Structure formats: C-alpha cells, structure tokens
C-alpha cells in the first residue's frame, strides 16, 4: 500500500526572490530519486505539501508546468512556521514533497476554447503553471485565444517578471499587466484588476475565465464577467483553506460536503453556489 503521508525527498536547486519586499520566493525542487519524478505526475492547478522536517508541512500550489521536466517549482510567501523555515533555506538543502494533490485546472474543458486568465498578487502561481502549459510547443494549438489580466499592488510586487517580459513579446497571448499604483519607473498600466478586465472586455463566446486572487479582488471582478456575459459554469477559481492531510481525511478544509484538498481546490462558481458557504 502506497503511504500517501510519506513525502518524496527533494533538493532545493534554485531560489528566486520574486518581490521587492523579499517575502515571496520561488523554490525550484529536484527529486533526489529520479523514479519519484515519474510518480509525481501533475497537472496545472494541483498543489503539494512542502515538508520541512521538524517544522511541518504547508500546502502550496504548483507554480511550474509539467512541460518543464526535471524539477517542480513553488512560489511561497513567508507567513507561518513552515514557510518561514522555507525562506531560511539555501540551495542544496533537502526537504520533502508530498503530492500532487487535489484536482486541477480542467484542461480538457479549456481545450478548443478561448481562455481568460485573471490573477491578483501572489495568487498567480498556479495560473502561471497553466499559462506555461498552454503556450508550450504544440499545446498552444489546442487552445483558442489566451487573454491574461494580472495585477499587483505595485510594480515591486509583480512576480515572474522575466516570464511576463517574455510573454509580452509573443503574439499568441494577450497579456495585460496592471498595478494598483505605479512608481516613477513604471511604464505599464495602472488600475485595479476588475477595471482592467472591463477595459479588456473579453467576449464570453466559447470562452472560459480562470480567476485566482485575493477574495476582495474576486468579489469585485466576478460582476464584471457576469456583465460581459460569462456564466457561472464558465468561471473557474481555486480555493484556499487551512489544510493538514491534503487527502480528505483530517476534516478541516471542507466547504459544505466537499473537501477543498480532495474535491478541489478548483471549482466553478456554479459548483460553489451549490455548496454551503463556510470560507
């Protein structure tokens, strides 16, 4: 019997400090045993438990794409016991990785459709995974128009700056990066995500919106998409809850009868409507 609580040993091979405040870093982890990578087959939108021995585990969305073999990446904000310990780590440190866990972005459902991706702040991680997956090689042909709206409070808080730069040069992806308030060096767009979404005004025709960000952003962005004509069935999000086991046993991350860890984290708003709200 495979023990789902035992992590795979991994090694930190690269650390990127993403933001000016230095409290968000991306960790690239490589499997110590090559065969484990095979077992850790994941789909964008899934998450994993990062395991720091002596500290505990923390559920984090996978930021890399399965099209990037050899490693898995996680973008982590320093907050609690585990993430603080993680931020202290150096390249070469060994830790544990348990997963992949949860459902994923519904790739099959997105295929053949125009995809609108809306991200806010540091919740952009699994969206980055999805974008990299969709634009990788031949994968790109499987999807229609890709529109991205990504916002942060200020330019210093935008993550994956190099990739944003690279994406902006491609003509098969409509990238709209915005900040709530720019600084002297900022030449891009200024404005809140909901406003930018309205300006970009994607058509609901054969389209799906994937949205991930702070609750307040979601609250104000949803009406924009409803107004544009998107239905609750075509707006998809990913939930966050305090988790421990990640496999639907420990009993804390449920929203109604569904466990965010096992039945989620990805839900359509139509599905969420049916659940008793407790989050």
């Amino acid at each position, binding site marked *: 019997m495979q023990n789902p609580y035992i992590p795979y040993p991994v090694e930190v091979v690269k650390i990127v400090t993403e933001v000016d405040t230095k409290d968000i870093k991306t960790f690239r982890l490589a499997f110590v045993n090559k065969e484990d990578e095979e077992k850790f087959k994941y789909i964008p939108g899934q998450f994993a438990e990062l395991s720091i021995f*002596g*500290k*505990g585990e923390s559920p984090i969305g996978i930021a890399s794409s399965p099209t990037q073999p050899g490693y898995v990446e996680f973008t982590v904000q320093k907050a609690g016991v585990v993430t603080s310990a993680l931020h202290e780590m150096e390249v070469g440190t060994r830790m544990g990785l348990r997963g992949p866990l949860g459902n994923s972005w519904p790739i099959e459902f997105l295929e053949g459709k125009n995809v609108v991706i809306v991200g806010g702040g540091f919740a952009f991680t699994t969206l980055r995974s999805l974008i990299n997956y969709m634009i990788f090689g031949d994968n790109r042909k499987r999807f229609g128009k890709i529109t991205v709206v990504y916002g942060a409070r200020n330019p210093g808080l935008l993550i994956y700056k190099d990739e944003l730069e690279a994406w902006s040069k491609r003509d098969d992806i409509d990238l709209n990066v915005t900040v709530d308030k720019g600084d002297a060096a900022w030449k891009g767009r200024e404005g809140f995500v909901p406003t930018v979404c309205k300006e970009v005004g994607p058509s609901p025709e054969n389209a799906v919106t994937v949205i991930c960000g702070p609750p307040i952003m979601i609250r104000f962005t949803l009406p924009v998409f409803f107004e544009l004509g998107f239905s609750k069935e075509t707006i998809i999000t990913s939930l966050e*809850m305090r988790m421990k*086991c990640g496999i639907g046993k420990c*009993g804390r991350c*449920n929203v109604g009868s569904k466990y965010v860890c096992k039945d989620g984290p990805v839900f359509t708003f139509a599905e969420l409507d049916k659940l008793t709200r407790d989050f």
Partner: protein
Amino acid sequence: MEKRLIKKDALTGIIGKIAQEAVVFAPVKVEDNVLFKALEKGEEPFLTYANSKNAPKNHFFPRSEVMLRYTRTAKGVEFAGGQKEAEATVLFGVRPCDARSFVLLDLLFDQEKYKDPYYIDKRQKATIVALACVHPPYATCFCTSVDGHPLSADGADVLLTDLGEEFLAEFVTPKGEKLLKYFGDVKADAAAEAKKEAVAEQAAKEIKSHIPAREVKPIMDANFDSPFWNTIHQKCIACGTCTYLCPTCHCFDITDEMKRDDGRRLRNWDSCMYPMFTKETSGHNPRPTQRERWRQRAMHKFSYYPENFNAIACVGCGRCVMYCPVNLDIRKIVTDISKL
C-alpha cells in the same frame, strides 16, 4: 454462519486463552473510569460494564501516533515511515454502537483513492468481538435512530448475546470464525435463535431516546443560514470532550517534533470545536465563532457524511450527551432542526 453456546462464566477464561495468542483489548475498570484498553498481565476485563468512557476507535485511530521519523545527518535529513507494523489484536466486548463506528470510519480511511495505511493496518489485523446490549445501558442510547440496533452485528466479527443462562456466540465473518476454537463445541439450536429474536425485539423497545436523524439532512441543508444556529452554541465552552469521546469523530492535526537531531511527525486528534482548527496563518478563520463550529459538527455528522458516504456519522452511543460539561445535547439539536 457458525453459532455456539457458551456458559456465562466461561467468558473470562476465553479471553485469557485468546490473550495468549493476540493482544486483547477489553473494557477495564481503572479507578472510576471504564476504559477500553489493551489488557495487561493480571488485568481483569470488566464485562458487566455499560459502555467504556473512551471509544474503542482509539485502537485504530489513537490520540497520537507517529507517521514518520527523521534524523538530521551531515548529508541532510533522512526520513522513513514511522509506522510500527500492527500486531494481531482482538477487541473483546465492543458494544454494537461502537462496532458500527468501525464501519463508518472504514468509509473514510479506506477509500478507493488515498488509503490511510496507519488505520487500515491495525483495522485489518483486528478481530471484533461485540457484546450485544440485551438491556441498552443508558437512557441516552439512541442507536436505533441512526441505523443501529442494540443487537446489531454491524462491524463485528463475532457477536455475543446474553441469553440469560448462557451466551450465544455468532461468528459473522471468516475473521471471526478463526476464533471458533476458543468457544467450545456446543452448537446453538433453533431455540437459542428464537430466544435471541425475542431478546432483540425487547432490547430495541427498551431504547427510549429517538431522534429524527434520517430526516434532517434536507432541512439542515436548507437552513444553513437559519437563525437557529445563532443561539444553540452559546453555552458551548469549546472544549473537545464531545469529539474526543466520540466513536466516529476522526479529525486530526499533523505536527512535527524534534529533539536534537531526531524528529518525528505525529498525527494527533484535533477537534472542530477548537477555534484553531480552521484558523489560517493570515489570521482569517472561515469558522470564526462557535456558531459556525457547531454547525459544522452537526452538518458533518448528519448532512455531509450522508452525502459523501450515504451514512450518518453518529452511532447513537450517547457519550457526547452524557459527558458534555454544559449539557449541549445533540439529540435536542437534531430534533429542533427537524422542526424548522
């Protein structure tokens, strides 16, 4: 199914013999508590008990267990599963309500995807000898409202029923039949079976507490935001007594502990009654007050579990009713909800 009759005074001897080949868990009187625990040498099982204070689930899902052990070495941390392989055990004298709790816990821990090896290993190696409640022991017993019965063999491998002069032993599973050799060779006759039928009927009649457990799910679902929830929790002191004594509660926490270079990852019981249970690092708590926590506990047992597993997550043992320090009675809550 094999059935045997045994003399009433033979039970202790049988337990003694089984104990020579397997670890036996049985109710034991420890000071003022009757505890379901591993029989130690020279310890007498207490078989005239009503029910144990702690639930026998503790054997499969202990208060605290090691999931993983690790050591800090020069090369980095090395780790391995900390699971001790379970020994063969016999749980002797489990009440039918508690035996049923194993069936309910199996649904969660032994799912198709994600099997819980800690629970399953111990569960597979345990044989359950249940002791029927010929006279349901407490006025708070309500097993018949939650798909149980005082003489139910659900979850048991062997069911013992006191027929007055002797015990009827029914070997309901192949696992149970492995214990046949300890129970003598007097086969039960039709008369004994008829007697059991009568006892069963009488026992069910003696259960006086009834709740509309099967009917409340749709009412609960429709009343998630009802003002009903605004007041019931007021006297709850947010202790975990109800969940810690409950035979079906299974929520847990995972924590790490280290001492010098050695560490372990533990899973400990946790309780939905605790404010910290769902509190996130950011400080946000999706269940910010005892109102949401109580609603969660009630909904989990009577709505979510039925939805996910088609079974009510309550066996009607009455422990939470009897030992709640402030008499927050789940029977009353379910009954009151049904009237909404």
